[in-house]
């Protein structure tokens, strides 16, 4: 099993969710986050000060999937989030050792979906 963590543009969340649903991935967790990446931040003027905002609002997705869903998930995220512009975001994949469904105590592949 893998845990997929993606940082995307906040306003792309809807599109990504749609793409994931189409790919039959229905489970995920969403958090808001600030990110610093290749998109070097934009200049904001606040009270006449042009300031480089380098922590940009991003939306973080955590999606746990079985191996065979890893690529479809990545594909769906890319499909929903890509615009071709800097700031589109990144996807990180880590190994997932175990999953437990609290309600039933089920573990592993069964529990993930």
């Amino acid at each position, binding site marked *: 099993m893998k845990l997929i963590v993606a940082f995307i543009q906040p*306003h792309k*969340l*809807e599109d990504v969710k749609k793409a994931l649903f189409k790919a039959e991935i229905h489970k995920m967790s969403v*958090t808001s*986050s600030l990110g610093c990446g290749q998109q070097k931040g934009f200049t904001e003027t606040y009270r006449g000060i042009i300031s480089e905002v380098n922590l940009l609002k991003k939306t973080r997705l955590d999606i746990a999937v079985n191996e065979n869903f890893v690529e479809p998930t990545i594909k769906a995220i890319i499909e929903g989030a890509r615009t071709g512009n800097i700031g589109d975001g990144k996807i990180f994949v880590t190994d997932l050792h175990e999953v437990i469904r609290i309600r039933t105590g089920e573990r592993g592949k069964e529990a993930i979906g």
Partner: protein
Amino acid sequence: MEKFLSLIRRSWKIGLLILFTATGFLHAEETVEAAAATAPSHLPVDFIWLLVTGFLVFLMQAGFAMVETGLTRAKNAGNILMKNLMDFCIGSIAYFIVGYGLMYGASKAGLFGTDNFFLNKANPGSVDGLWEYASWLFQVVFAATAATIVSGAMAERTKFTAYLIYSFIISLIIYPVSGHWIWGGGWLSKLGMIDFAGSTVVHSVGGWAALVGAIILGPRSGKYNAQGKPRAIPGHNIPLAALGVFLLWFGWFGFNPGSTLKFSNVIGHIAVTTNLAAAAGALMAMFTVWIIYRKPDVSMTLNGALAGLVAITAPCSVVSPVSSLIIGGAAGILVVLSVEFIDKVLKIDDPVGAISVHAVNGAFGTLCVGLFAESRFAEAAGFSPVSGVLFGGGWHQFGVQLTGVVSVAAWVLVTVSIMFLIIKHTVGLRVSREEELKGLDIDEHGMEAYPGFQIIN
């Protein structure tokens, strides 16, 4: 006889004394005769009443700003606040330059006013001249109310520059002209239309403009799904919206009772009908949503209070308290059904319910004059003793009211459509989809309303 003469002397002295103290501006040296001749047409209590109530109406700007901000998303909060502030600022200037003259200047064929631009009839040399200033102040806050209504219906997707232009034009021309018809001695006032505090003059004008704006703009992206089903886009700060409603209700105690335009003993009665209609509006809206959707929705209840207030605005001085409960209650039901209808059937996206509150209930309230007016109240309020249909007055007044509602609606719908279409095809009316998704604050103002807070969406 000595006693008699002394009596006379005393009475003369008292008269002079009172005149002197009460009016303040008369010099003791002036002969009494002259004093009588220049007796002030506007008393201190008139000035105080008009200004204090005008100040309360000003605070409605804060109320609208909070309601509209609270009922839209955080990412557009700075933008909607700026629009609310700016329509008042630009509107003030437009109304000073031209609007007030167009509304209250010497009437041209009952259609529009033709003088008193730049407040040039006002002057510090006479009570009447000074009154003119007070009068303008009171009127400008009404003009601004009409203007600001639109921002709610067009929220979260309108270009800032487009909104500035709109604000200027509505306060400059559109609002003043129909205002002239009803309040400025124009043709509708001659027909006998009664719109005491402006259900039509102010609220419907704003509401119809909001309708046109919302239609031409189209819905916010994501508001309707592919099948045309509406999605809820919840407002981001309900406490702010509720605060706004309280401020509006408070301001309405200036709006309606102040519309006597000078002190009058009926102000208490007007405050009562205003309050009861608002209470009934909130209550009935709550019960209506509760029955239909199983939950007493907060934002709809807030709308209900406003609907009651808008509906009672025209008839507040000519109906009984019991009638005001009925009018307000009906408005509360109406606003829920209207929001439903506009959202689900017409599929017009009005984020804060401005069209239902101001256009629909403005029209409804204006018609209520024709239904619920009672001659005893009308007379006390200084109108001719008209009665509505339900109080034996027949359908005449209703017909007059209907004429007013329809003609003002026509005027606004046409002129505002032209205005928005011109704006759309020149500077542009709507921000890009990209900008809309990011939020207007970032691209239009380079800022966030709540930096530091973690916000999703």
